[in-house]
């Protein structure tokens, strides 16, 4: 049963996975080999930019596509618990977000490990990217579950991301004289994961991981509950 659900998700997501791998790994490989910019720029751009791109790409289609095509009703009427369907979707979504960035990390380490950046620094930056991508995916899916199509789900995803950005801007504006407070403010948003991964602020990174993990659990439970209720929307 679970195997069948994974197979379906794999068939639906594999083209996005292939697209992400080609675009991000290709960009990293060409960028690091050509040496037109510092390695750090390529690494940060691929891990941070790639994480946002993949989260949007996957999050848009995870539930909304099935909803717009009408197959979600059939899926939810099968003799399988809706939370299992949701869990499989999230696991597969997270893998599709993570694998291209893992590919970037492998290429970065192989081509530029220890050249301008230490291998450890490269790995931490990419792990931050993977974490951010998964967190953004969960936020996006939890908030966009009621959206009727991919475009609307994508708008919700962009809205969530911009919401974090505005929050950070506001926080910095209010507490700009207290750097310690600014850093703690970053802990609240998933952007902190990216920032701390890039700057290796270990104490704050730990707190950011704890705060985000708690939020993630809440969002997954909330999203799973809303997903289960999706069959109820039509008279």
């Amino acid at each position, binding site marked *: *049963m679970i195997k069948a659900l994974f197979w379906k998700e794999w*068939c639906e997501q594999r083209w996005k996975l292939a697209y992400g791998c080609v675009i991000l790994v290709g960009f990293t490989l060409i960028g690091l080999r050509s040496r037109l910019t510092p390695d750090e720029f390529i690494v940060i751009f691929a891990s941070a930019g790639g994480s946002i791109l993949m989260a949007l790409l996957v999050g848009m289609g995870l539930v909304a596509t099935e909803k717009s095509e009408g*197959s979600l009703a*059939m899926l939810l*009427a*099968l*003799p399988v618990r809706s939370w299992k369907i949701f869990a499989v979707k999230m696991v597969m979504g997270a893998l599709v977000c993570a694998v291209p960035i893992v590919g970037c990390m492998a290429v970065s380490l192989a081509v530029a490990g220890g050249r301008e950046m230490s291998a450890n620094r490269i790995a931490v930056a990419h792990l931050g990217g993977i974490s951010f991508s998964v967190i953004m995916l969960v936020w996006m899916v939890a908030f966009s579950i009621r959206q009727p199509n991919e475009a609307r789900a994508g708008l919700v995803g962009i809205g969530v991301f911009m919401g974090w950005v505005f929050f950070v801007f506001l926080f910095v504006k209010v507490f700009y004289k207290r750097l310690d407070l600014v850093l703690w403010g970053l802990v609240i948003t998933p952007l902190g994961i990216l920032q701390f991964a890039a700057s290796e602020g270990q104490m704050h990174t730990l707190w950011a991981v704890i705060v985000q993990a708690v939020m993630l659990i809440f969002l997954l439970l909330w999203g799973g509950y809303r997903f289960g209720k999706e069959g109820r929307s039509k008279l």
Partner: protein
Amino acid sequence: MNEPAIKIEGLHFSYGRKKVLRGVDLEVPVGSIFGFLGRNGSGKTTTIKILLGLLKPDAGVCKIGSLDSQKDVMKVRQSVGYMAEDQQMFGWMKVTQIIKWVGSFYPGWDEKFARELVDLLELPRDTRVKNLSKGQNSRLALLLALGHRPKIVILDDPTLGLDPIARKDFLRYVIGLLQSNGVTVFFSSHLLYEIEPVADYVAILEDGVIVKTGKTDELRQSVKKILLRSAGDIEFGGVGGILDVAKMGERIAVTIEDYSEAKREAIEKKSGCAAVDEVDLNLDEIFEAFVIGNRGKKVKV
């Protein structure tokens, strides 16, 4: 006494403030083809969704055999064959793929039977679902509902969107496959003429309540239209069971529920004129009388 295949008691349901079901009571006998009739938006799909545990009622109990549709959701879905209204499936899957995939969710899935159904329902095995015609799509949905050999099949407006030929074909398949095997079929539709020849029992749902239920033949015999010739206004207050009063040229047509000679005489006495004719009604006309009949019992001539 045999346990009914489906039993619904005091079912209430609201979408927000909108009350959709307001005390639905229903019993579907084992082995019958049960026509669940109602206009669009009358609450048929909502009732079916509650039966399958897809919706939680505000009040009331639904039972499929001995299973409670809210407490034994997975068992209910495993034991029932369900075809949704305008069922959309995964367009990228091939016919054989979707059959195998859906089969993996049912412990009692009969692969051999499913293969036989593919031939019987004339489905192209290697065609993607998105490339199937509407008729083929409906037949595939029927196959997916029957592959685990359920004893109860729930079809929610299964012929919606089909042309008349495809509709006829579909019904032929349903009857051929199910009627002889003792399967209970709960068939919702707003197309009365397609229910009439196949249903043993019917229930009419209107505005969230069952306004009439019974054997199709008995219903046909119990509801009659009598024609009266009248020159003046007629009022039928005090006469029970009048479903509709309408003017038809120089005649007044009165549709009566639970028709009897006594009722006919009461109407003749009340109106002061003799009935000139008595007409049998088809299910379409009976449905219309129950749903939109003029129960004002008064007509101006």
